[in-house]
């Protein structure tokens, strides 16, 4: 007889008072002890429950009432014009945006004209200088150049005036090309930044190194851990195969987390490797899982013994893996993972 069976038998002999206490414990003792309680008591309880069910929607109704009151107050204030309608606000915002956009377009137009004129003037100046040096006709050419300079200045000043007329801001002829240059530089800088940003994950991954797994998950016969989302993560859970003989698989689960508790239930399933793929093995008989949850505290490990033959009978020779789900963390912030224990049946 197994130890657990002995213990089960011993529990079957505990004091009657403990058995009686547990029989009457909890909220639904009347329902459980139908035979022990008289029928009217049960009926009363049922009726009480029914009446309670009517008031179950009390909270929802109260919430609806509060919502209706809020809507009413809002409507009242809105009708009195105390609240600015979101549509009005949008119209105002749209008008302001349109005005700003037009202003911007006007500026760009002016700056384009000015830049074009300045460039033209410079070209002409260069041509004139060349003529002067080659042909030795300094004075006449200088005069022409001077006239052209003044003409270009006139154009510039006209443009300035036009700009003043069109927009309230002053376009400065020297700052405009600078602004354009600055914008180009910013664009180029931003371009570089984009490239850098594209490389960042690669660099980060190089710096961080490989995900922390104990052993090689794919080929190792010992262990592997993957998250359910399919992405590999540095999970500090180590599964080590201890042995497999006579249909009994033993392995150790170590929780290397410093603060989180690892827990898992007794259920598992088996997969067999056929080619490069893992296929689920069909259990031989019927089975039911014991509803037992096991906890592994941080920095602790636990050895598990699984009788595979009980569910899958004698395994055909080949590579298998036991698949088991586990969870790490608190009830509200738990992360689910799948553990794999690879082994070979001979």
């Amino acid at each position, binding site marked *: 007889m197994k*130890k657990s*069976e*002995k*213990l*089960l*038998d*011993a*529990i*079957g*002999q*505990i*004091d*009657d*008072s*403990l*058995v*009686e*206490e*547990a*029989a009457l*414990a*909890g*909220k*639904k*003792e009347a329902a*459980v*002890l*139908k*035979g*022990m309680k008289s029928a009217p008591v049960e009926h009363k309880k049922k009726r009480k429950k029914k009446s309670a069910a009517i008031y179950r929607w009390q909270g929802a109704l109260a919430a609806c009432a509060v919502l209706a009151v809020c809507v009413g107050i809002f409507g009242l204030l809105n009708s009195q014009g105390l609240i600015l309608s979101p549509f009005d606000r949008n119209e105002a915002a749209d008008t302001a945006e349109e005005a700003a956009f037009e202003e911007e377009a006007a500026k760009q137009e002016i700056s384009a004209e000015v830049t074009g004129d300045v460039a033209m003037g410079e070209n002409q100046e260069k041509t004139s200088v060349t003529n002067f040096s080659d042909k030795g006709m300094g004075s006449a050419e200088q005069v022409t150049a001077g006239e052209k300079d003044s003409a270009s200045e006139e154009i510039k000043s006209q443009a300035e005036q036009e700009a003043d007329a069109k927009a309230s801001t002053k376009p400065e002829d020297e700052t405009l090309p600078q602004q354009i240059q600055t914008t180009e530089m910013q664009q180029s800088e931003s371009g570089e930044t984009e490239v850098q940003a594209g490389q960042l994950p690669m660099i980060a991954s190089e710096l961080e190194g490989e995900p922390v797994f104990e052993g090689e998950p794919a080929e190792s016969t010992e262990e592997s851990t993957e998250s359910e989302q399919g992405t590999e993560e540095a999970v500090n859970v180590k599964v080590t195969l201890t042995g497999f003989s006579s249909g009994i698989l033993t392995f150790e689960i170590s929780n290397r987390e410093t603060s989180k508790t690892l827990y898992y239930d007794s259920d598992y399933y088996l997969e067999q490797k056929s080619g490069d793929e893992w296929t689920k093995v069909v259990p031989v*008989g019927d089975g039911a899982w014991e*509803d*037992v*949850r*096991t*906890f592994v505290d941080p920095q602790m490990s636990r050895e598990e013994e699984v009788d595979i033959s009980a569910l899958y009978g004698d395994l055909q020779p080949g590579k298998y893996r036991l698949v088991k789900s586990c969870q790490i963390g608190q*009830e509200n912030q738990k992360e689910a993972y799948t553990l794999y224990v690879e082994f070979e049946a001979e």
Partner: protein
Amino acid sequence: MEDEKIIDLYWARQENAIMETDKKYGNYCRSISLHILKNQEDTEECVNDTWLRAWDTMPPKRPDFLAAFLGKITRNLSISRYRMTHAQKRGSGEVDLLLMELEECLPSAKSVEEEIEGKETVAAINRFLYQIDEESRNIFVRRYFYVDSIKEIANRFDVSESKVKSQLFRIRNRLKDHLEKEGVVL
């Protein structure tokens, strides 16, 4: 009918004692047995065996808590039946089945030492259960005596299933420590 009167019927060897017991505690015992066996026919047989065992034991016994007394008989008979059917289902366990059948023929399969050890274990468990808080104790008994599912316990005590599992895990660990301290070897 009150428990005292039902026990009096047994002591008076009146056959309606069983009828009255079934009327009052039939559902309770069936519930225990059904939790273990998950089979209506087997459950019915187990409950009938319980009445028979009660008839055989009263007198000389006069239980203080009739419900617990009957519950214990049902539970232990159901577990025995479960073991037998389980051995049968395994197929290869024919020898186990034979041994279990033969075990029933023996007046007592346990040796004196085993019986004493068993009693010591029971006493240690009792001491442990009286030490722990009421809720933990009831959860433990509901799970390991009445064989209630986690869900049923959670519903009964109005707590989450997770909490029940955690609590049971801690109680098991504490019981292990307690039995080790008391020198109980299983």
